[in-house]
């Protein structure tokens, strides 16, 4: 039995043996789909997750990862989402308005109503209100669990830009949450700039 190959080994190998890329799919499809599902609902996730890997394969020569390729894949998925921004925002706004999430499929049928508790709707509205790149940076941080450097890589911007976007995203979110719930504590300035 062959030893397990690292992500970058698979990608390197796939340059001359394209079928090696299927291993990348097996390893990471679930994570990419989940990220897309949480951002834009199941239907879009089904479509864009497929496109992400097809595109990643086509662009595999430009993969700069040094160990795991997941951040690179998240970057591709996020850029695909940019073209579906309107769909994503429509969902978020409707979710914020009604409290009913019709786009995601939940493990627990009722979870759509209780997931995230009282903050669901303001979170959705905050996300809808943010600028697209701020939303991308925040959700790559919160949902995809990327570091600032990895986000910078995925979105092809300097780390400083990522910090700025995250700062603004959090500020927008704070505003929405405070307005909506009257319970959320105001941030102390400067405390959010960490990574």
């Amino acid at each position, binding site marked *: 039995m062959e030893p397990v190959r690292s992500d970058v080994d698979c990608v390197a190998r796939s340059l001359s043996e394209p079928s090696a890329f299927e291993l990348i799919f097996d390893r990471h499809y679930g994570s990419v789909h989940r990220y897309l599902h949480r951002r834009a609902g199941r239907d879009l996730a089904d479509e864009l997750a497929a496109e992400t890997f097809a595109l990643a394969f086509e662009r595999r020569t430009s993969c700069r990862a040094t160990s795991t390729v997941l951040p690179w894949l998240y970057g591709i998925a996020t850029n695909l989402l940019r073209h579906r921004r309107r769909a994503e925002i429509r969902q978020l706004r409707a979710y914020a308005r009604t409290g009913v999430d019709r786009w995601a499929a939940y493990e627990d049928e009722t979870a759509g109503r209780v997931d*995230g508790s009282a903050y669901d709707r303001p979170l959705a509205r905050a996300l809808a209100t943010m600028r697209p790149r701020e939303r991308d940076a925040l959700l790559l941080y919160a949902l995809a669990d990327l570091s600032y450097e990895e986000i910078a890589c995925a979105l092809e911007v300097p780390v400083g830009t990522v910090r700025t976007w995250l700062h603004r995203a959090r500020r927008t979110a704070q505003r929405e949450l405070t307005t909506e719930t009257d319970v959320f504590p105001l*941030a102390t300035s400067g405390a959010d700039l960490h990574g």
Partner: protein
Amino acid sequence: MDKLDDLFRGFRSGVTAPSEDAVSAARELLLRGIGSFDHPRPSRPRRRRAFVAVAAAILVGGLLVTPAVGIGGRLLALIESAPGPPDVQAPVWSSGGRQIAFLSRRGESNFDLDVVNADGSGQRTLIHGATREPPSWSPDGLKIAFESLRDNGVYTVNADGSGRQRLARDSKDPAWSPDGRTIAFFSGAKIYLRNADGSEHRTLTRPQAGVRDLAWSPDGRKLAFLQGKGGCGPSCHDLYVVNSDGSGLRNLTAKLAVGIRLGLGPASDPAWSPDGQMIAFARLNPGLGEPIYVVKADGSRLRNLTPKPVGAYADPAWSPDGRKIAFVSDRDGNSEVFVMNANGKGQRNLTRNPAFDADPAWSPDGRKIAFASKRDGKYGIYVMNADGSGQRRLAQHSP
């Protein structure tokens, strides 16, 4: 802001795993894209193809008969044992017949774009870091369009190496139109047409999976290309033609699929006949080798030109007068350049050499054929007269 971040971390955290249908559809899409590369052939010229893993191709064909979606371990092992890719490949004549552009390998998929005069003098490198996609000359012989590893873009460069310019990033397969005014290429799985002076561009088609190998008809009115075909295995394509205004998109090989089992292989690069009436390509049929087919541009008269002997054939290249087709075959035991009449008769081995020979390219006056060979122990670009005599080396790979 930890608390805020935590809240977002919980956003829709209870979502389900992807459905089986979604996973298989995604895998199928990926495999179609993978299939458009199939064996580790580095060269995928617009009209000719390096004939690297010929033996593997036949074996692959045999293996693919057993129904299996996706590529299994045995197949992988076969692909791994195939001979390595050539270091020099894809000779392309300028339309005046005075220069030949070709690719010279530097790394696994990293090539130099070289040019040599037709008499073998003046070999020079124009560009480092090109991909294995053969270059496309402008009809006036002054520029070359090529694929760069740099931002996976499509670029042009002057024939003296100066003036490199990017046409588009994340694009592939540049093809200069016969009138020199337009460059076609793929970007985001769509065909783009861009004026050669950069003044404007337009999209010709909607995104399609697994597109490759763009080729203008000689009158510049149509484009042929390959597109992945779903449901028939990972290495499966159809030949499409579209008018240069985007109308009339048509699948020319839909008929071929009927009655052929799982495991259809790739069609080769479309090669237009000089009169624009026919297109030649090679097709992998499990158990039937890889014959060369021709079809009329309207989809009629689909014919197998090389039914016997069964073997692997590839790289069909029409002579400029349209009377003959050069091609590559392994039927004599190793990869050789052959020629036949355009009706499939009179097949003759031209190179007759135990070393690897492939990638035939007719000179514009039809008197010579350039090709890639490893006969001197190293890969080089060679030329011979159209009857196979006078074989000599023009350029060599220098690592």
